[in-house]
């Protein structure tokens, strides 16, 4: 099963205003490993034509990217106001 199908099962209350994770593109541009693209279990980080693409909307809030990125690009905070992932089983 593809990761996209798995994520489609999830319930998110997406915050249209506040991205709880941000990346610094100028750091990512020179990143030698892009380990985030391997570590993130929700595939929020992908390389498109060599450029890092990040979408916070699919985030399941595990925190892995914050540990994975050893170059200081990822800024991780908790979503606000009940936004983000809403697990049904957990």
């Amino acid at each position, binding site marked *: *099963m593809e*990761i996209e199908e*798995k*994520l489609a*099962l*999830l319930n998110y209350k997406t915050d249209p205003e506040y991205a709880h994770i941000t990346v610094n593109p100028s750091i990512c541009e020179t990143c030698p*490993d892009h*380990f985030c*693209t*391997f*570590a*993130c*279990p*929700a*595939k929020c980080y992908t390389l498109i034509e060599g450029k890092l693409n990040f979408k916070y909307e699919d985030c*399941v*809030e*595990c*925190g*892995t990217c*914050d*540990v*994975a990125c050893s170059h200081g690009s990822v800024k*991780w*905070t*908790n*979503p*606000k*106001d*009940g936004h*983000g*992932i*809403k*697990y*049904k*089983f*957990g």
Partner: protein
Amino acid sequence: MSEFDAIVVGAGPAGSSSAIKMASGGLNVLLVERGDPPGSKNVSGGILWGKDLSSIIPDWEKSAPLERYVERKVTSFLTHDSEIAIDFKTKKFQQDKTGYSVLRTRLDGYLARKAQQAGAMLVTGVTVDSLAMKDGKVVGVINEGETITSDVVILAEGPNPRVAISAGLREKPNDKTVAVGVKQVYKLPENVINDRFNLRGNAGFAGEYVISFLPNNVFAGGFLYTNKDTISVGVVINLETLRKDGKTHSFDIMEQFVQHPYIAPFLEGGQLQEYSAHFVYEGGYESLPKPYGNGYMMVGDTAGFSFSNGMILQGMNYAISSGILAGESAIEAKKDNDFSEVSLSRYWKKLEVSPAILDKKNFRGINSVVWSGLVHRTIPALLETSLQNMLYETGAPKKHLSQILLKSMSSTGVSSKDMMIQGYRLMRRM
């Protein structure tokens, strides 16, 4: 004067247990949870071990949303083609139910309601941004620029504790202190689960696996637990080896586990309900943060209370017990009206003689064994080769076990001296 006696950040098992304890002890408690409802941000593999809830909810075994009790406990090595397992079933589990499978959205909702019933004020869907500090003391929490004051703040944020980290009360997680847990929940009819796992009634299956078939030396463990009419299955991925490898995707490891020839049949026909991921705290005794200070205490995963020795994975029990101990300490501190570091050191004294700390201490260094090539590659390969040589009928004359072992060792590239040393270390640490 503070607005609350205590503010608890996070309504998981640790936070709610501590809120129940404090509110029942007459404290004025605010329990803040960013998820709405409680539990909607939380993931566990899913076995609640022990009876720690008994002291705060005497009838919990009747009233809590428990799925099944563990009657069959499997510890297993999975290689590419084989499974080598210890399958332990005992009627003793039926008499003394020491472990129950749970689903966190249900359990956490239940515990938060209990805290509310005990008199705590529960606020959900609101994120605590940071701690309010004054003269080196924690005096409350801050949300959207507004401070809510309390005599003591209990940090129960789980293994990714942003508030505690940003306040500098503990280190950021790293490759050594956390592993990535990825989990899937499948729906299957209750009777199918019973038949498939050879269970009756409320009995359940709990399996923990060493996943030794991953390419490129990535280390991961697996788990499979039965719930009433769902199955929780997942992997715990070691970040150090995933990083070193640099080619394997975390989500692919999950997929490879559920497709393994001896895992897939358990899940056949099941409908995938949920995909989730969460940190699993892995840090040892050495990396434990100091869990208290002026005006604050840390509980559960935030304080690093978890345990894994490869045979068993525990966390919720320590969350509950540390939450209760912190609650007890807050009640005592309130009597003295002293929430200073010296006063709250009573929490540490209680912890020191509790399993939360004792288990960490006694199993110092266990992680270097759990996440070692010996456990993840050598032993599974050795077992597989030996058993194959022993149990495969090829028509050739049979050999003694010692001969088989020696031959298997040479074919898997381990010297007998190495094996002895490493094996001894393993036994000592486990």
